[in-house]
């Protein structure tokens, strides 16, 4: 079984990883996010409203789904339902095959990653082309994205250049690309690499027979799909090809277009530290053939979870990853889950049945930075705690741990016993280093000695 502990140990050993992740988060995105929030007196009010809108939508989801389907169909879209990722993939492939599609332009979509639609297309002999720069690099490298809004967050420019050279996207690796080079030269090289990707993808955009996207929001009152981006690849993917398939989780619903004022004031700030993203496309009456596939894939089960259904209000901004000290040491890949970071740690065990995801709720120091930044106010730290309670109650932890906590709790409820069994300080210290938790502590840090005299004893002598 995959082990977070083992995996994290290896990732932590690579100190360069954490350096890169801190640079990309605290020194850039997060800095911009915090600077914008400081200038937004209505930030908290917007967060509260966003939470309310999402909770309202979730508790009236049948009504809003019905409204959305009706409106979208009236607008000319074909709307279908998919129970699972495999089901959605099958439908996407069917649509592609019935339109004789050879090449698909893919807009960046976490839902697409979740259902692994690329693999399904490839198996059917259809070429999926990721068009977001970061996702394109992930596809070329054959690795999953490491962050929901910054897929190649831990890639260095040098690594990108080497990949591009090996794929013939550039002829030569430019000089002045490593971290020590002149920043101005590096900026120029980043532009060069981006330009090469732009050229390589241009032809693919122009010849794609179908575009696949997700949606950031699906507006019930008007049947509108809302797509948010900076690169313009989503516009190209959804507007140029004659067929557009949007795979939309049922959690993306919002009641009204007016609600976009709230969500679009929060999302770019939290995600990338921008006041507004480059492009917000509202697809209302499509001119291409538009298929909307509404995706369940575990969401209905989560909706029925009285305590955790608010996890469906996540807008995939990735801010909880940026602020998370665990994420900043292990990266998205460290979670072994397409949704990483704090939201991934609580969402993935709901969406996926594999037992190893039950480790993720424990992979947090519970510092609460995620809940503090979350633009839709999901109490992520509480959800992590509740998962731990559930896993313990279901017997999902080692028996020895459960026995230790039971014994410890017994001791702590019996103060006289607790005070009586205290071993001499020196002996305790020596023993602690050999016992489980003490030994694990001492693997990386010094253990404090037991004091020769407890405070309780001192108090008795001096105050009683």
């Amino acid at each position: 079984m995959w082990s977070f502990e083992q995996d994290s140990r290896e990732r932590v050993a690579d100190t360069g990883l954490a350096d890169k992740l801190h640079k990309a988060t605290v020194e850039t995105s997060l800095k911009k996010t915090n600077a914008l929030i400081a200038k937004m007196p209505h930030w908290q009010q917007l967060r509260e409203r966003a939470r309310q809108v999402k909770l309202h939508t979730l508790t009236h989801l049948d009504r809003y789904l019905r409204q959305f389907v009706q409106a979208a169909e009236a607008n000319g879209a074909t709307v279908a339902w998919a129970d699972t990722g495999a089901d959605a993939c099958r439908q996407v492939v069917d649509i592609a095959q019935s339109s004789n599609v050879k090449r698909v332009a893919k807009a960046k979509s976490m839902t697409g990653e979740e259902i692994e639609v690329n693999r399904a297309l490839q198996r059917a002999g259809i070429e999926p082309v990721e068009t977001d720069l970061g996702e394109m690099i992930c596809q070329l490298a054959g690795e999953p994205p490491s962050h929901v809004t910054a897929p190649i967050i831990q890639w260095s420019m040098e690594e990108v250049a080497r990949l591009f050279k090996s794929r013939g996207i550039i002829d030569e690796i430019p000089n002045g690309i490593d971290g020590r080079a002149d920043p101005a030269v590096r900026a120029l090289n980043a532009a060069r690499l981006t330009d090469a990707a732009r050229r390589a993808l241009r032809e693919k955009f122009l010849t794609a027979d179908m575009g696949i996207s997700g949606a950031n929001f699906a507006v019930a009152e008007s049947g509108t799909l809302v797509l948010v981006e900076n690169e313009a690849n989503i516009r190209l993917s959804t507007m140029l090809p004659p067929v557009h398939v949007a795979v939309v989780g049922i959690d993306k619903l919002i009641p009204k277009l007016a609600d976009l004022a709230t969500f679009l004031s929060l999302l770019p700030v939290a995600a990338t530290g921008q006041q507004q993203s480059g492009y917000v496309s509202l697809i209302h009456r499509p001119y291409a053939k538009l298929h909307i596939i509404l995706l369940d894939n575990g969401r209905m089960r989560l909706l029925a979870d009285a305590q955790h259904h608010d996890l469906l209000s996540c807008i995939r901004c990735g801010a909880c990853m940026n602020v998370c000290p665990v994420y900043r040491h292990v990266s998205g890949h460290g979670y072994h889950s397409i949704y990483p970071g704090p939201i991934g740690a609580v969402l993935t065990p709901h969406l996926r049945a594999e037992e190893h995801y039950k480790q993720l709720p424990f992979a947090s120091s519970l510092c609460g930075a995620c809940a503090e930044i979350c633009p839709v106010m999901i109490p992520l730290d509480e959800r992590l705690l509740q998962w731990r309670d559930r896993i313990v109650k279901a017997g999902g932890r080692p028996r020895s741990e459960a026995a230790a906590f039971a014994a410890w709790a017994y001791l702590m409820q019996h103060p006289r016993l607790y005070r009586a069994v205290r071993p001499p300080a020196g002996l305790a210290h020596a023993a602690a280093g050999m016992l489980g938790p003490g030994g694990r502590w001492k693997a990386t840090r010094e253990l404090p000695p037991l004091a020769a005299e407890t405070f309780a004893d001192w108090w008795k002598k001096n105050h009683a």
Partner: protein
Amino acid sequence: MPMRVGLFIPCYVDQCYPHVARAAVRVLERLGVRCEYDPRQTCCGQPAYNSGYWAEAARLAEHFVRVFDKYDCVVAPGGSCVAMVRHHYRELLGRDEPVTARVYELCQFLTDHLKVDDLGASLSGRAALHVPCHMLRELDGDGPARRLLDNVSGLELVDLPSDTWCCGFGGTFSVKFPELSAAMARRKLKQMEEHRLDYVVSPDESCLMQLGGLARREGFGVRPLHIAEVLAGMVN
């Protein structure tokens, strides 16, 4: 009838860092607060709660209420434990226990309850203030501790980007993932060292156990100090 003030000394402070508790007593007594200490107190239950053992944690919460209910006010030199009692007992106990709202973290008690910002303490050097995450986000933030340290003569508080980052302790997280936990502490200590700091001052000794434990293991020159030690003038 005079106000009864109970001392709530976190279990690990009682066992490993009694000088921190003695420093807190000195600060309070200097301000004329007469404290009581009930030796039946043990642990607030946070380690069990954070590890998912809520039934065990609930039993300790009941024990806490039994011990402390008699006081008008409870003061603790440990922000994390106070946050546990104030914000998580309700869920564990399934009811509101009035005593939980009467539990104060030391700094908060000094600045908000006693309205004292200046203890007349002095300490020369440069320091970072590390406020435990639960105090930062569930109690009064870094305000009370900062106000108190601002008035310590000779002490220069240096603001670092890492001030609000978790130290990596996280209770049993620290032993479940020792390398990851230590890496989180290391990143903070490195930043402190780059800024040539002498001390890291915190209102919570558990974070200092983590930071100090790594500092000693790896030879960082930053010295961990509990804020009570600083305010009591008990730094030697």
